[in-house]
């Protein structure tokens, strides 16, 4: 078992087989630096719980195909990314820091799928982005490819 500590001082015990899906922790264990508790100063307990939930489910991912659990895993992944933007970004930041390739892939793809058909206004509102382009700059980008701003798929709603 490996002990992880979140930045709000909560400790979690995780099986080594699960935790080594994180390249960062795998390297620490191999280098003998993971003898006691591994502090994770960038991750809060709420996010760490989500990450551990993912690691535990994906523990034997290689075997999933053999045992016919692939669909189950796919369903889990779909449910897993069913979260708000703030939570999703926290998990992405944690996956990036811990270097968990599959989790990073899953969450970034989910983020991309949510943004794909959104209008510019909707993207700014969803991600709380303050526009820093002048009207002229914005118009220039629209004029460069007006067709990219048109189409029945473009969705102006924020959800």
């Amino acid at each position, binding site marked *: 078992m490996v002990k992880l500590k979140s930045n709000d001082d909560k400790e979690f015990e995780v099986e080594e087989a699960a935790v080594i899906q994180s390249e960062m922790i795998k390297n620490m264990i191999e280098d003998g630096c993971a003898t006691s508790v591994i502090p994770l100063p960038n991750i809060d307990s709420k996010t760490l719980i989500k990450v551990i939930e993912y690691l535990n489910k994906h523990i034997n991912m290689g075997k999933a195909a053999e045992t016919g659990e692939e669909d189950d895993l796919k369903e889990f992944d779909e449910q897993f990314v069913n979260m708000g*933007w*703030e939570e999703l*970004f926290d998990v*992405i*930041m944690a996956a*990036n820091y811990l270097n968990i390739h599959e989790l*990073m892939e899953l969450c*970034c*793809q989910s*983020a*991309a799928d949510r*943004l*794909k*058909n*959104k*209008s*510019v206004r909707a*993207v*700014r*509102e969803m*991600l*709380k*982005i*303050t*526009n*820093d*382009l002048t009207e002229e*700059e*914005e118009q220039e*980008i*629209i004029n*460069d*490819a007006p*067709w*990219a*701003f048109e*189409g029945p798929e*473009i969705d102006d709603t924020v959800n």
Partner: protein
Amino acid sequence: MEKLELEEQTSSETEFFDLSRKHPVSDEASHQHLNQSHPTNLYWPTEIVTEILSRLPVKSLLRFKSVLKSWSSLICSPEFTKYHLSLSANNNKDYTNHSVLWRIAQPELNLEESLVMEETNLDYHMKNSGIACVIEGSVNGLICLVNEAKELFRWNPAVRKYKKLPDFSTKLKDDGQCTFGFGYDDIHDDYKYIVFGECRG
């Protein structure tokens, strides 16, 4: 495979994106804050934004250039273009993005019967010119077109732009046959065109 290749190539100078999400503002308030500096207490590394945006189709990216200045610089950067190309090529295992069906004068051809994922009116530049074009090659989502007047074009259907290439026809015999080659030079990161033909004199 979609190739996001844009004319302007600005390097990404901004290191971080401002997504001050811990202070969600109401719709009305966000309009008031428009064009004002917004208090930020959280930064998203370029790395993360790159990972997300590189999974989007070209049409979304062309639109999202107008979300934020730093997004525009990122999307236009050659590094991003290359990364996007590598992802879109590798994520498309069934090769559905890998072919362009060419329909100019055969409206009776039923595209639905072939394995078509998406039908788009590409509105290519010589569509209404009455001059026939032939696809002479394609690599990385770029297509080399040659018309009857032996003019060579590099066409990027994903961004719907084309570029006329230097004229070579004056060097060739008028009635001479030509053979074309189009490829990507990995070492110099450049696209090369080869024309075989009979020279004048």
